[in-house]
């Protein structure tokens, strides 16, 4: 299991990186290497040119600006995990990161790498869906923004053109007083989830749900935002009956299957995890409201 031959490039700037991408056919961008390197070792990926972004320091940043969280594509999961800014402004991201791989993989793995790999159950992709992320993409032809909903075009395939790279991501920061939860079911700690559900709930002064956001991973090639369920929650009391109804709807969403996991089980987990996430988020929202 050794990588096939390639020509190695290690640009120091985004402009050098995109110039390389524009010039070379069958080039791949190397971020943290936690997904691409195994694929290269297995020779599932055999790029002729490997463009290593690890020395492009301008791609590693965490900035909170105007209710947005901006993270560079080469920011390591480790740096997100240990960022006090994120702990303060978006603690849910930390909750989700706790499920991502292991210490060794988070030390190297990057946000951009995870988003471009687009594993259907990846926690960071789920977060991007929940937090209405915008992907900032650059190439020698210029820059463009892609909403997350349009970023994943098929199973583990993104909307990136061969000459483009993901430079950064903007997440919409949630409203101040909201409750949130991230729950997933994986076979072992650190595995990709079979199904994951994240949610944010805000309550009005009567204690009814005034805002609801849900992202479900593991049902499709990319996380889903079940708009009908989100809508139906508005104005409802955050109680068991409400959550059961939402859970029952979540189970109706069609799901993929593979050699290990049936669509029926994924749908069942969507039901169970939606209920659990809503319960937790509601409890958290009440805490936030009173605390």
């Amino acid at each position, binding site marked *: *299991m*050794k*990588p*096939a*031959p*390639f*020509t*190695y490039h*290690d640009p120091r700037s985004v402009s050098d990186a995109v110039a390389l991408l524009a010039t070379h056919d069958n080039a791949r961008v190397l971020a943290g*290497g*936690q997904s691409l*390197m*195994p694929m290269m*070792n*297995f020779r599932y990926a055999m790029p002729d040119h*490997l463009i*290593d972004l*690890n020395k492009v320091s301008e791609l590693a940043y965490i900035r909170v600006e105007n209710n947005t969280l901006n993270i560079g594509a080469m920011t390591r999961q*480790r740096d997100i995990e240990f960022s006090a800014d994120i702990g303060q402004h978006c603690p849910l991201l930390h909750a989700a990161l706790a499920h991502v*791989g*292991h*210490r*060794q*993989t988070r*030390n*190297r793995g990057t946000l951009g790498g995870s988003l471009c790999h687009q594993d259907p159950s990846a926690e960071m992709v789920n977060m991007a869906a929940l937090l209405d992320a915008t992907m900032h993409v650059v190439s020698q032809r210029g820059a463009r923004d892609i909403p997350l909903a349009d970023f994943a075009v098929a199973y583990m395939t993104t909307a990136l053109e061969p000459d483009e790279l993901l430079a950064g991501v903007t997440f919409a920061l949630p409203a101040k007083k909201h409750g949130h939860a991230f729950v997933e079911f994986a076979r*072992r*700690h*650190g595995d990709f989830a079979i199904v994951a559900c994240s949610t944010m709930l805000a309550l009005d002064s009567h204690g009814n749900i005034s805002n609801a956001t849900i992202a479900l991973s593991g049902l499709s090639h990319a996380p889903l935002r079940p708009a009908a369920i989100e809508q139906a929650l508005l104005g409802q009391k955050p109680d068991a009956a409400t959550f059961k109804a939402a859970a029952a709807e979540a189970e109706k969403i069609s799901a993929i299957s593979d050699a290990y996991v049936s669509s029926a089980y994924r749908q069942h987990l969507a039901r169970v995890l939606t209920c659990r996430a809503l319960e937790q988020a509601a409890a958290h929202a009440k805490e936030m409201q009173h605390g």
Partner: protein
Amino acid sequence: MADTRTISAIVNGKSHTATIETRLTLVDFLRHELKLTGTHVGCEHGVCGACTVLVGGISARACLMLAVQCDGLEVATVESLAADGKLNTLQQAFQDNHGLQCGFCTPGMLMTLTEFLRDHPEPNEAQVREALSGNLCRCTGYQGIVDAALDAAKKMRGTTR
């Protein structure tokens, strides 16, 4: 023609300069170029943790890094732990608690725990088990390893106070 680069890395405190093929993984560089065979290859897809080393002081899978990426960096392997010839506290705790059987996963376990205990000097059992969840062992059932980590943590706290 093979794509090569000349790199310089500081491995276990010693500077090494070598001309290598750019596709050479870090673990193969350590094992077969520098002959530091303590770092093991268990899966080459980043799951088993046998190849765990510290790069710039933080743990990494050496099968998922290219040697060329370590140009100018410091790498520490299991061979660095008993630098003065004597087993260090963690190593000794492994022997004391039967934390190894075949010994193959052991270097990765040691490097993972070296980082973990440095950052978490007072861990509980659940935290140790979670910290080890990126390292596979097929012999011990992990019990001896967990005991060793807790024992080492206790002793390291004792000696640094």
